């Protein structure tokens, strides 16, 4: 099996190529339109009548299918009683549930943090040449064509009378009116027939006239596309590239700019914090200005990133950026969105001394343990620290003494780090690396624990302040963050040469992969607290996140294992022959290679997790899906209106998942995986 894998993926080529800039390769030359259509739609050019008949038949069948489906979708989206107001009015609910208006700045700060990080990362990544003008023109043609086609296909709008009521007609098109009992009758008061009544619609010409705006957009896109196509000529449109990121930024900018002139929302927020549904308004200023600021942040950060990428010390900056991405979820969630009320007395009396103790003494211990020529004493000391950690947990179980959970965990982490120390024995710089790493880790760990344990200042109607899309995103992020190390550990254990580790990892992975996620979610939401000591209790969010982490780790482990199988045995042998320890071999040789090959499946796993968060709706979390399925349809104005909301969240999920899968495909191409 491993032979099969390694023959498909030429790892050495992959890894050598991954760090080079993508070469600029001109696009394929295009066929003349008629020849293209003949070849791709009507099967000509193969020299057989059968091929032409088959090709034409397929084209007609599938074009018919596509047109029918497109028309049905358009008719629903633009139908007068689709109920899109239920989405428009409830955008805030869908995305952040009942997060208080007066604290909304926090949400925008969070989005701003993400925008800055994204901008910096975009600025610092090496990307390919971008998109050729040929591709851009093709997009413009496609979208323009789709819009024009849609304008033609959509059924004419329903006519309404002066009261805004829909007008009806019988099957022959004779209009019906409402009598005093509000039932439909003919003009001469004859009762209307029981079947064949439909809404009265305007005629085709008038409908086309009403859709002038759409006509203009569609034709404009077609015209721009044609201009690019014909002005540049075949060779230049294939070899001229527009960089991808500036193009994307321009697109986002265009989208943001529409908030200044198009009536997206028709609603605005009042002084009291509620919102009004005002027809004359543009999109609410509370939305328009923040979005513009976000865009500016993104662009500025992107330009900054470009500058930093050219700096000589870009290596540490990159590491810092990665660390910022890792910390951002915690920071935004616990420090910004919750608005913790710090108990400064407690901080000064307990938290700070503890931090000084662990950072200082722990650092000193590690410094000692990495002294050259220490021999086995280092390992023995580490085991002693681990034993002490174990003792604190046993003590907690039997209730011998009380101790902060934070201290127990810190001692445990110190023991584990001490166990790694022999790998860092050497010159002062080497030793300093471990000590600095430890101090940084313990600082962040203590900070986070303090933040998590501090009460929130945000008052919300429900226990958990997060909801809607916000909860979806955070559960997905925390899941990926925590399941990654766990999954890697499981993969290492499963590929280990030690049978007990292998058996334990296999049992875990197969058990979690064998049962449906929803049962795990029930398990963790319904009775996780049964298994915990009386004093401990998990909040709903923590419980579901743990369920997701444990579940996702099992799948992730299998992906990483696949990557490990692509590593040839010689790599292990060479590391052993050089005398690297198992930890060094794993950290320097095995994991870096395995993870690079596993990137595409890992992105796939991220997409899966993102989609799977929708299961939260079943176990009582107010997530994105729950908002659209239960909360919005429960409002008196929109009683039972589900379809628009569901379609809207479908679109949001689609954009997220599709973007990630396209990214993964690009990576796959870049890594040469799956190419022949």
């Amino acid at each position, binding site marked *: 099996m491993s032979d099969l894998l390694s023959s498909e993926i030429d790892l050495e080529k992959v890894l050598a190529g991954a760090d080079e800039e993508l070469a600029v390769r001109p696009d394929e030359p295009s066929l003349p339109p008629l020849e293209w259509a003949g070849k791709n739609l009507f099967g000509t050019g193969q020299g057989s009548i059968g091929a032409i008949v088959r090709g034409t038949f397929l084209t007609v069948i599938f074009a018919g299918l596509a047109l029918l489906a497109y028309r049905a979708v358009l008719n629903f989206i633009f139908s007068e009683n689709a109920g899109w107001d239920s989405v428009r009015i409830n955008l805030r609910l869908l995305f952040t549930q009942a997060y208080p208006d007066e604290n909304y700045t926090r949400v925008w700060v969070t989005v701003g943090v993400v925008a800055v990080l994204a901008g910096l990362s975009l600025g610092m990544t090496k990307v390919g040449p971008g998109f050729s003008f040929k591709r851009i023109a093709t997009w413009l043609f496609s979208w323009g064509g789709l819009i024009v086609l849609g304008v033609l296909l959509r059924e004419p709008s329903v006519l309404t009378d002066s009261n805004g009521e829909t007008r009806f007609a019988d099957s022959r098109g004779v209009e019906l009116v409402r009598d005093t009992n509000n039932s439909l009758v003919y003009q001469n008061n004859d009762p209307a027939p029981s079947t064949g009544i439909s809404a009265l619609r305007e005629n085709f010409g008038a409908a086309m006239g009403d859709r002038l705006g759409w006509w203009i957009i569609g034709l404009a896109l077609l015209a721009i596309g044609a201009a690019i196509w014909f002005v540049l000529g075949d060779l230049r449109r294939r070899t001229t590239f527009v960089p991808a990121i500036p193009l994307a930024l321009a697109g986002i900018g265009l989208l943001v700019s529409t908030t200044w002139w198009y009536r997206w929302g028709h609603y605005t927020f009042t002084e009291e914090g509620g919102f009004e549904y005002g027809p004359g308004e543009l999109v609410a200023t509370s939305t328009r200005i923040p979005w513009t600021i976000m865009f500016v942040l993104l662009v500025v950060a992107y330009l900054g990133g470009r500058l930093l990428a050219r700096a000589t010390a870009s290596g540490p900056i990159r590491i810092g950026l990665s660390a910022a991405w890792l910390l951002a979820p915690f920071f935004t969630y616990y420090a910004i969105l919750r608005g913790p009320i710090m108990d400064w007395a407690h901080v000064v009396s307990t938290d700070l001394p503890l931090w000084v103790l662990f950072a200082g003494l722990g650092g000193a211990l590690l410094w000692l343990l990495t002294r050259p020529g220490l021999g*086995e004493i280092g390992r023995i000391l580490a085991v002693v620290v681990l034993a002490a950690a174990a003792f604190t947990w046993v003590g907690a179980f039997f209730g011998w003494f009380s101790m902060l959970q934070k201290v127990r965990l810190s001692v445990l982490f110190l023991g584990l780090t001490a166990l790694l120390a022999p790998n860092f024995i050497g010159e002062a710089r080497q030793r300093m690396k471990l000590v600095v790493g430890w101090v940084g880790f313990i600082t962040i760990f203590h900070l986070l624990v303090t933040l998590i344990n501090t009460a929130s200042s945000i008052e919300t109607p429900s226990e958990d302040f997060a909801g809607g899309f916000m909860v979806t995103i955070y559960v997905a992020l925390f899941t990926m963050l925590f399941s990654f190390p766990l999954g890697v550990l499981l993969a290492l254990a499963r590929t280990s040469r030690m049978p007990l580790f292998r058996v334990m990892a296999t049992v875990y992975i197969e058990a979690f992969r064998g049962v449906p996620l929803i049962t795990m979610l029930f398990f963790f939401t319904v009775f996780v607290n049964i298994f915990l000591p009386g004093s401990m209790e998990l909040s709903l969010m923590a419980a579901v996140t743990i369920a997701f982490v444990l579940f996702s780790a099992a799948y992730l482990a299998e992906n990483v294992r696949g990557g490990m199988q692509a590593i040839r045995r010689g790599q292990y042998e060479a590391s052993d022959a050089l005398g690297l320890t198992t930890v060094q071999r794993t950290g320097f040789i095995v994991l870096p290679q395995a993870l690079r090959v596993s990137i595409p499946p890992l992105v796939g796993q991220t997409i899966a997790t993102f989609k799977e968060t929708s299961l939260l709706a079943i176990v009582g979390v107010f997530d994105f899906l729950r908002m659209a399925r239960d909360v919005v349809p429960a409002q008196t104005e929109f009683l039972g209106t589900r379809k628009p909301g569901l379609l809207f969240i479908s679109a949001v999920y689609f954009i997220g998942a599709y973007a990630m899968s396209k990214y993964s495909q690009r990576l796959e191409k870049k890594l040469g995986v799956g190419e022949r």
Partner: protein
Amino acid sequence: MSDTAQETLVTTASQRPPFYRDATVVKWIAQVATLVVVLFALIFLALQAGDNVSAKGIKTGFDFLDVDPGINLNGTIDNDPDTGGRALWAGMVNTLRLSIGGIVAATLLGILVGVTRLSKNWMASKVASVFIEYMRNIPLLVHIILFFAIMQTAPSFSDDVGPLNGWVHFSNKGVSVPRVFQADGFYQWLTFLLIGAVVGNLVRRRQQRVQDETGATTYPLGSLVAVIAVFGVIGWFLHPLFGWLDGVFSTIAEAVDKIPQAAMQIALTVLAVVLAVNWIRRFLNSRRTPAGLAKLTDDDWFRMIFAGVGAAIAAAVIWVVWPGGSSWLINSTRDLFEVASDKFGAGRDSWQNDRPLGAARPDFAEGRFANPGSAGLNFSAGFAAVFFGIVLYTAAFIAEIVRGGILAVPKGQTEAAQAIGLRRATMLRRVILPQAFRVSLPPLGNQYLNLTKNTSLAIAVGASELVQVGQTIGNQTGKNLEVFAIWMLFYLACSLTISVVVNFFNVRLAIVER
């Protein structure tokens, strides 16, 4: 080489290093320590759970399986079950129905879409890829709930709701289609088919041999199908011939019932010991050389000790931890045979009227509200939403797997096949598809597993299947933990079955490589 020199050297025995430096010992200490920590944590949690449960006054146990759960199900074999066990069974049957039907439908649709996606025709390929991207990038649960919402706003049920009146009805009550059902005598007929398959296989082998020896075209596969068909036709009329199996099964059931619990416990213990001993023997054999037993390393000793410990743990479970397990095994086996006896008992004497299969078109039940009648096959709105959801969703993934499989066959294979003059059809059948199938099979098995697990999403639209039924019973009786155990066992059994089937084909198809 002089023998004397060697002897003198061997006698100076190697010194053992202290244990903390012995690579093997350190390795095993680390493993055992981790195992102990994990077990300790699990025991801790279990003890805690025991304390908490008894503190709340909840009684644990599986007695709810024999008590009337007081719940109603929909769209199952028994909508008003009289025991908890029966309710869960009805749920399992629905899960299996959804899974098996879903797997068949999703495979067919997936292959169709996958091949369309590969088509040279731009239109066909684009339509297929839009379908795939739409299904794949939106959560399955959202699909299901959207389908459910669409179903609920469909026109209300009547006998002319269409789209094909009298045959297919699509309404807010769900989907009604004609139904094929098992009648009395079905299992006797199935026995005929089984015998037909065995006989047909013999015929097929013979035909194959003749073809191999003489080169004559003997249609081995065709004759297999023909033999089965002949047996099917004969069995259609003569099925009561196998009615006597009823008595055989009931006799076996009685015999099983007479096995004492202790005998079962002894048998199971013997089985565990035999397995362990067998493993150790095989292990030793693999270390045996023509020159005698090879020197066993410390690692080998540890492995054998753990095999023994495993057997001891199994024995402890059988005798001390869960002695009831053995009688449960006896009872289940007895019940299984009794059910088989019932199935064969039905319709054993009716020569004239009963045919093993029946079919009926949907009908219209009179009442205050229009409802589909019981004759046709009715998917309730929820059930239909789940079924279409999982089928379309999985089909999109299967389509990608099929496409990937076909693309994974190197171009050189096509060229080589053309070079030796194979016709297009032969090339596809004998060269391309077998290789594509080999690549696609493992991910296909994964998708089948996912589909089976995804049936559990039916709970979101209230369609009855194992998880929905279990959740309802759990809420009614507070026996959530027990229900969870049943879920685990059932889904693990399903996963195992699918893995075994996929692995069977995988091994058969594997290309032998050095």
